């Protein structure tokens, strides 16, 4: 019986990756903070697109990510397929299930990260914790640095359980994005934001169709509460699917995260072209946000 997953990355590779990471954190700081800061300097919110690797197949999913970037996404969340995506709704489950069954894994994810970086956007991995732990936390961090990734968003890893990830990201200079929720206490908001680097992911209650006004209020309140305890950027996802909705969220958040709408375009068979068109609409949306009165 094997023990905890071991990092089997070579020592010298790890050392050089770690030097590179440390150098990056010295020279450039957080890649996500930089791109979000640049958007802010342009007077707009950043557009963050989520797409899972491996739907409908690895190559098409990578082409879709590149198309999202061409359409105007600043950041791509490169989704790691997982068999038990407890936080995902039916749209993403459906796509991810295909990728899981096809055996898509971390090497494919790293290839997608490279492609997004080459397309000129900032890639950040989005993964439930077990695939990272299974791959080896340090090995993942080193390979992600080598592929040009900014860091990772970990939806089921709270800072309380993240000792190994905190250490690996300190060593490599990678960003680490944790989530906050409307139910988070002030103390947890502060601790979670303090543990985050790059941005804080404000996950606000979805509700069902037709409750968007309420949800939007909750998200705005959550952003305000997070900002009151942290200087880190706060990005929000709300099931945004149109340019108008993106504009609405962009009025109070540093970044607008869109997932299901992109995945729906792929599920509908619109392919990378459909993703590009959606990205263009959303990118226009984050640029016409007015500051709320």
């Amino acid at each position, binding site marked *: *019986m*094997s*023990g905890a*997953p071991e990092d089997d990355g070579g020592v010298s590779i790890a050392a050089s990756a770690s030097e590179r990471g440390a150098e990056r954190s010295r020279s450039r700081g957080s890649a996500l903070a930089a791109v979000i800061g640049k958007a802010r300097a342009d007077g707009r919110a950043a557009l963050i697109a*989520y797409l899972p690797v491996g739907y409908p197949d690895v190559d098409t999913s990578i082409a879709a990510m590149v198309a999202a970037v061409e359409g105007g996404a600043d950041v791509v969340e490169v*989704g790691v*397929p*997982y068999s*038990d*995506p*407890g*936080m*995902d*709704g*039916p*749209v*993403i*489950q459906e796509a991810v*299930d295909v990728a899981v069954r096809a055996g*898509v*894994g*971390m090497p494919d994810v790293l290839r997608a990260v490279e492609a997004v970086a080459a397309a000129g956007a900032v890639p950040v991995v*989005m993964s439930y*914790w*077990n*695939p*990272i*732990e*299974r*791959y080896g936390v340090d090995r993942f961090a080193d390979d992600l640095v080598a592929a040009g990734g900014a860091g990772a968003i970990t*939806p*089921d*890893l*709270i800072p*309380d*359980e993240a000792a190994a990830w905190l250490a690996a990201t300190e060593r490599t200079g990678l960003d680490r994005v*944790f*989530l*906050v*929720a*409307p*139910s*988070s206490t002030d103390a*947890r908001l502060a601790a*979670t934001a303090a543990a985050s680097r790059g941005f804080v992911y404000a*996950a*606000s*209650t*979805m*509700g*069902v169709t037709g409750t968007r006004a309420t949800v939007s209020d909750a998200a705005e309140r959550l952003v305000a509460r997070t900002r009151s305890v942290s200087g880190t950027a706060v990005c*929000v*996802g*709300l*099931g*945004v699917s149109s340019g108008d909705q993106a504009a609405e969220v962009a009025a109070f958040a540093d970044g607008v*995260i*869109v*997932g*299901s709408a992109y995945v729906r375009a792929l599920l509908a068979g619109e392919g990378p072209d459909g993703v590009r068109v959606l990205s263009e609409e959303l990118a226009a949306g984050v640029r016409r946000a007015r500051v709320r009165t």
Partner: protein
Amino acid sequence: MTLSAHAPAPDVPDATARPEWPDATGHFGVYGGRFVPEALVAALDELTEAYEAMRVDPEFVAEFARLQRDYTGRPSPVTEVARFAEHCGGARVLLKREDLNHTGSHKINNVLGQALLTKRIGKTRVIAETGAGQHGVATATAAALMGLSCTVYMGEEDTRRQALNVARMRLLGAEVIPVTTGSRTLKDAINEAFRDWVTNVETTNYVFGTVAGPHPFPAMVRDFQRVIGDEAREQVLEREGRLPDVVLACVGGGSNAIGIFTAFVPDAGVRLVGLEAGGDGVDTGRHAATITGGDPGVLHGARSYLLQDDNGQTIESHSISAGLDYPGVGPEHAFLHDIGRAEYRPVTDAEAMEAFALLCRTEGIIPAIESAHALAGAMVVGRELGPDSLLLVNLSGRGDKDVETASAWFGLGEHTAPTDDDERAVEAGRGAEPGPGLDEDQQPTEGAVTNDEAVAGPDAGEQA
């Protein structure tokens, strides 16, 4: 009763004293903890705090004891099964009769506690996952008793294997939602229940069915189930004047096993043996023997052993027993395994069914197929230890729900039920249809999330 002929009884430990694990944040060594979306942390904190207050509240202690006695029928008896024991190498075998509890298994012990907790925190709706349906039936029962609205998530595959329990839950007023995602079994029902919880956490409490999941569930469910071992230890001491040599229990998520083990953990001379579902055999890859055939990782909110592939994807488990057909296991078992306090062995479908038939014919007791795994373990361990050894087996449930599966296995009559093989289900002409329990007109309870419109609250998926 042979009290005085034996050595004096060892000291009885304080039954309310808990093991020194988990720590304050729910860790059993490196296992356990909370690997959950932040949106659930507040609810888990609320549960932990309310539970810690409740467990020492004399009013709760009295109410829980009253329900266990008057409603469940506790204490459950210990039965010596001499004719069955002839097949166990001459060892003496005692059964702890959780099958005689109201609703037919140990699951009721836990749900009564969690239902009282639900009322205490002012929530009006409970949700539960279920595999064999026993936990779902128990939860539906407690909800009916306490006037709570109840939704049960059950893998579609399991609604076929356990159609009788689906009907029971519906008779009890619960809504049963067949889960069609993933492998359509218990693990997917748990995912769906978590999605419901995260969406409806203000009104809803998640009554988790076993000693897995995020803190506080493993510790809380253990506390509610430990009555099994607390009673049994006293009962065995009283009738035998000594402790058993070995305590055996089947392990799905691990609640009946932790329930009977906990009282004996401090008794260094008592071997604790957990029997995992070996399915077609561990070497075939078609099994649910998580500790024997898996390795450490994170699933359903906690670190423990699990069945996973090289990408960290959960591997679908296989067992003739729906209640053991789970690719994870509670973190305390992972810990007891690693520190060497308990041992875990696989039992194949065939071995379990042999023991199942044997108990029926030698003792007139139809066991749950889950529990039959523990009986099969006793047949092996008894032969290893020989005469004079004393085995205590947790008979976690009765087999009424399994009559169709057993009939199909043994080729009896016209009843054939599928195990976990869809083709066979369709051929058998049963199981292809969900069965009479699944009437389409049923109204969902308020706030229910059906599987085609499940929307996680802070839905990383929608937003990600």
